[in-house]
């Protein structure tokens, strides 16, 4: 998967847990929590969805690394590479 495919998958996962999200309006580098109302249940749903579609298990200690679109994509890219 290339970076833009990963970003697409991440944004789709985000919309699936927060249907009000407007991916086009999101600033890639700004914290997600400041751009949309996300709570810990949303974050858990997001991680579950990412696990389903990408097969990546994000441990709880790494949740802060999903704090923006750009950081999440970089994290997921590394995780997918490590998985092989």
């Amino acid at each position, binding site marked *: 998967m290339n970076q833009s495919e990963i970003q697409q998958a991440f944004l789709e996962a985000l919309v699936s847990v*927060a249907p*009000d*999200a407007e*991916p086009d309006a999101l600033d890639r580098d700004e914290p997600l929590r400041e751009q*949309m*109302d996300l*709570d810990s249940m949303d974050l858990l749903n997001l991680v*579950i969805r990412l*696990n389903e579609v990408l097969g990546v298990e994000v441990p*709880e200690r790494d949740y802060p690394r999903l704090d923006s679109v750009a950081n999440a994509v970089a994290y997921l890219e590394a995780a997918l590479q490590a998985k092989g």
Partner: protein
Amino acid sequence: MSLSEFQMPSLGADMDEGKLVEWLVEPGDAVKRGDLIAVVETTKAGVEVEVWEDGVIAELVARPGDVVPVGGVLALLETPNPAHPVGAKPAVATAPAAPAGAAPTQAVGPPAPAGGGVKASPRARKLARELGVDLASVPPTGPQGSVSYADVERAAERAPTAGKGPQTLRETIAAAMARSKREIPHYYLGLDVELTRALAWLEEENPMRRVAERLLPAVLLLKAVAIAAAEAPDMNGVFRDGAFRRSDAVHLGVAVSLRGGGLVAPALHDAHRLALGELMQAFRDVVNRTRQGRLRASELTAPTLTVTSLGEQGVDRVYGVIHPPQVAIVGCGRIQHVPRVVDGAVVAAPAVSLTLAADHRVSDGLGGAKFLQRIAALLQTPEAL
């Protein structure tokens, strides 16, 4: 065989009418007690409504989009039982609304914004509220069929006099909360509870679980409150017709904030009897369905005690307002590190501030204090929850 009426249910003392959104059955379908047969939209968002007797759908009287008063006929049901008492009522959808608060079995849930079952961005919801635009009537052009800010603006321009519904969000909140403050003599208690053990246990437990089965700290608190409530019956039940009725089961209401404002507190049925994993699944399911506008009617009216948390919004503690006819609400602030003295030294430890608002007609401060202390004690042995 006889015909009985399936009526618009009362989903709260302040509900006068509801809009039929969708039928989940067709004429001729056989239904069993407890089956979900319709989706109704109220000021509390979309709600799936159960049928309360076995039978066969004879006729769908109301059509999707119809606004039907509480007690008005939605459908006719052929049942094997002798005539149902409510079957004697005229089968018209325009039957007068039951007076609010008249039905002895109804409960009030907390208010939620109108149009909660409609997909819309938070900004669009806010604008719709300000302009009095019914979100359900706005043609959506946003992502995934959601209503965007621009859609609401356009709708408001087309219909500059778009009136609010007969019962606005603010009126719903006002009625429920004013009733609470008018009728219920609240007393308030607070207790800071250390969570070192609870969080350490979660840190060990979660990596052993599949991603979809991970536990949130909130579920430990919910379970602790449910167990304590089962042991403290003066906190768990309803106050109706001048008398408190204890509930043997703990149907724990959880306040769920909706995107774009408002909240609903549906019940986690028999929360005290569920294992942590089961409670977490039920909690996740009900939060997700609340936000999708797919609650069940019985979940809105069932709570015997409510838990509300505003910790994620950054407040230290919550002083709740009891939802009538319940008699207590537990508030949960944010989990944060606080200084604690351990063996004469100051250390930082995670803690949460729990509060209790309880009904002084039913319990006293001593009982409330024991209830909070019991919750705190249960949180010190998370493995036993």
